[in-house]
C-alpha cells in the first residue's frame, strides 16, 4: 500500500509521510495484543499446513480399518476416525484445504468486487445502477443460503466451493469500495489528475483504489473468517469438498454420524475451524484499529 518511493532519501525526516506510516502501522498493530494472538495462531496453522508431512507420520487418506475409531493414545494423539485414519494428521492436512479455500474465495470476491465497486462509485449512472441491482439480487439470498444455492447450481467440488463462497463474499467489497470511491472522487487530487488529462482507468487504479484499500484489507481479513465458516458449513452438509479429501467441514460432517459412539471425530475439526476463524476475527479487529481509527467499533 505504502510503496511510494520518495525522490530523495538523504534525510529521514524529510521523506514523505507515507514512508513512515508502514512502521507506524506495525507499531499500532503490535500494541493490539488480541490481534497479535490472532496472527500467532494463524502463523501456527500456516506452518502446520505447510509442514504437515514433517509433523505427522500418517497419510491423511490411507485407510487402516483395523485401527478404526480409536480413542486418543500415544500413537494417535487425537484418536482415529471410522476408517482408521489419524485425526490429527487429517486436521493438519485439512488446514491446507480449509485455509486455501478461504484465501482463494476471498481473493476471488475481492478481485471481482473491488473493481466493480470502484466502477460503480466512480462512473455512477447506468453502470452504477446495473451493478447495484446485481448486488441487490445477491443480497436477497441471506448469507449462507447464497453460497448454498450457488453450489446447488454449480455442483460440488473444490473449485465450485471456492467460486460460490467467493461470490457470496463479494457484495460487501462492492458496497465498501463504492462508498469510499464516492467520497474520494470529490477530493482535489482527483480533480488535479483529471485536469492534467489522466484517463479514467488510470485515475481509478492509480489514484482512487490505493486510497480506498485500508477498509478493504480489514474487510478481507474478516471475510476470511466467515469464508472458512461458510465453506466448512458446505463441507459439513456434504456439499463442499468431497471425500476422502481431509477438509475440516467435511470431517465434521463425517464425525456427526459417529457422535454417539466417538465424539472425537467431530470435536477436534470443530476446534480447528473455531481457532482459525477466531484468529482472523481478532486480526481483523486489530487491523481496523491500526489502519483506520475512523472505522473503530465504538
Amino acid at each position, binding site marked *: 500500500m505504502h510503496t511510494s518511493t520518495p525522490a530523495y532519501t538523504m534525510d529521514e525526516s524529510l521523506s514523505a509521510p507515507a514512508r513512515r506510516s508502514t512502521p507506524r502501522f506495525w507499531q499500532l498493530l503490535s500494541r493490539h495484543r488480541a490481534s497479535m494472538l490472532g496472527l500467532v495462531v494463524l502463523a501456527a496453522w500456516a506452518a502446520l499446513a505447510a509442514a504437515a508431512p514433517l509433523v505427522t507420520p500418517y497419510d491423511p487418506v490411507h485407510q487402516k480399518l483395523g485401527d478404526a475409531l480409536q480413542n486418543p493414545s500415544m500413537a494417535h494423539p487425537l484418536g482415529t476416525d471410522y476408517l482408521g485414519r489419524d485425526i490429527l494428521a487429517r486436521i493438519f492436512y485439512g488446514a491446507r484445504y480449509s485455509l486455501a479455500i478461504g484465501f482463494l474465495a476471498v481473493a476471488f470476491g475481492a478481485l471481482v468486487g473491488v473493481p466493480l465497486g470502484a466502477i460503480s462509485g466512480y462512473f455512477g449512472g447506468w453502470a452504477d445502477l446495473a451493478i447495484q441491482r446485481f448486488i441487490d439480487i445477491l443480497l436477497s439470498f441471506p448469507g449462507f443460503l447464497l453460497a*448454498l444455492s450457488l453450489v446447488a447450481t454449480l455442483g460440488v467440488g473444490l473449485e465450485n466451493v471456492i467460486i460460490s463462497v467467493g461470490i457470496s463474499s463479494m457484495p460487501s467489497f462492492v458496497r465498501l469500495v463504492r462508498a469510499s470511491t464516492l467520497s474520494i472522487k470529490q477530493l482535489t487530487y482527483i480533480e488535479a489528475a483529471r485536469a492534467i488529462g489522466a484517463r479514467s482507468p488510470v485515475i481509478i487504479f492509480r489514484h482512487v483504489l490505493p486510497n480506498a484499500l485500508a477498509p478493504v484489507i480489514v474487510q478481507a481479513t474478516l471475510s476470511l473468517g466467515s469464508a472458512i465458516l461458510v465453506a466448512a458449513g458446505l463441507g459439513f452438509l456434504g456439499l463442499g469438498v468431497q471425500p476422502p479429501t481431509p477438509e475440516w467441514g467435511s470431517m465434521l460432517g463425517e464425525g456427526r454420524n459417529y457422535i454417539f459412539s466417538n*465424539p472425537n471425530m467431530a470435536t477436534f475439526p470443530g476446534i480447528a475451524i473455531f481457532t482459525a476463524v*477466531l484468529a482472523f476475527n481478532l486480526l481483523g479487529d486489530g487491523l481496523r484499529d491500526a489502519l483506520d481509527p475512523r472505522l473503530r467499533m465504538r
Partner: protein
Amino acid sequence: MVFLMLRMLPGDPARVIAGVLASEADVEMIRRQLGLDQPILTQYATFLGRLIHLDLGQSARTSQPVLNEVMARLPYTFELALVAITIAVVTGVIAGVVAATHHNSRLDYLVSAISLFGVSMPVYWLGLMLIVVFSITLKWFPAAGADQPISFVLPGFTLAGFVVGLITRMTRSSMLEVLRQDYVQTARAKGLSERVVVYVHALRNALLPVITVVGLQFGTLLGGAVLTETVFGWPGMGQLLVDSIFARDYPMVQGITLTFSTLFILVNLVVDLLYAYVDPRIHYG
C-alpha cells in the same frame, strides 16, 4: 427482479413453443394465450398474480406441488427461528447492557470475549457439542426430533448461537453511545434510580441499531437453520432444502430458496415499520 431477468433473455417463448414450422398466425395465437401480447406491466401483474396464488410448480421427486411440501415444513423452521431469535435477543441485549454499564471492567471484557467466541464458532459444531454434553452424557434433552417442547432447547440454543454474539456487540456499542447523551445525565440528575435510567431512558434509545441488526441477522438465522436442522434432524425447510439438493429436485430447491428470501425481505420490512414504533421521530408517508 427475477421476472425482469427472465424477460430480458433473448428469444421468443411463443415461437419456441409453436415450433419452427408454425405459421405467423399460430405463433400470434400462442402469444395471446400466454399473455405475451400484453404490455410488460400487465405481464408482470400476471406473474405476481401466480406468485400470490403461490404457484411454485411441482416437485421433481414426489410430483407434489412444491407449495404443499414447503408449507408442511415451514412451521417447524419458523418456530425454531422464533425460539432462537427470542433467546438471542434476550441474552444479547442483557449481556450488551451489562457490558456497557460496566464499561472497561473485567465483566465487560468477559462479555466481549464470549461474544467474539460466539461469532467465530461454527455453530453446527456447537450443536454437536451440545448433543454430546446434554443428550449423551447428561441425558437432559433429546438429540433429535421435534415432537415435544423440550426438543426445542438444544436446536434453539444452537441457532441462537449464530446471532447472539453480534446482537451483544451491537447493544454494547449502542448503549455506550447513548449513555453519554445529555438526556441520560438529566435523568440521573432528577434523581431517578440507575435501573430506571438504564432500562427505561437509555435502552429504548439504544435499541434502534440493535433492531436493524436483528432484522439483518434473521437472514443469517435462516442460513443457520439449514445447518442446525441437519444437526438435529429437525423436519424443517432447511433439511428439505439439503435433501432436495442431493436429489437434484430443482423446482423444490427454487421454491424453498424463494420462500427463504421472501421471508427475509418480509422480516426486514417489519423491522422498518418497527422503527417508527420504537423511535417516534421517524414517520412514514
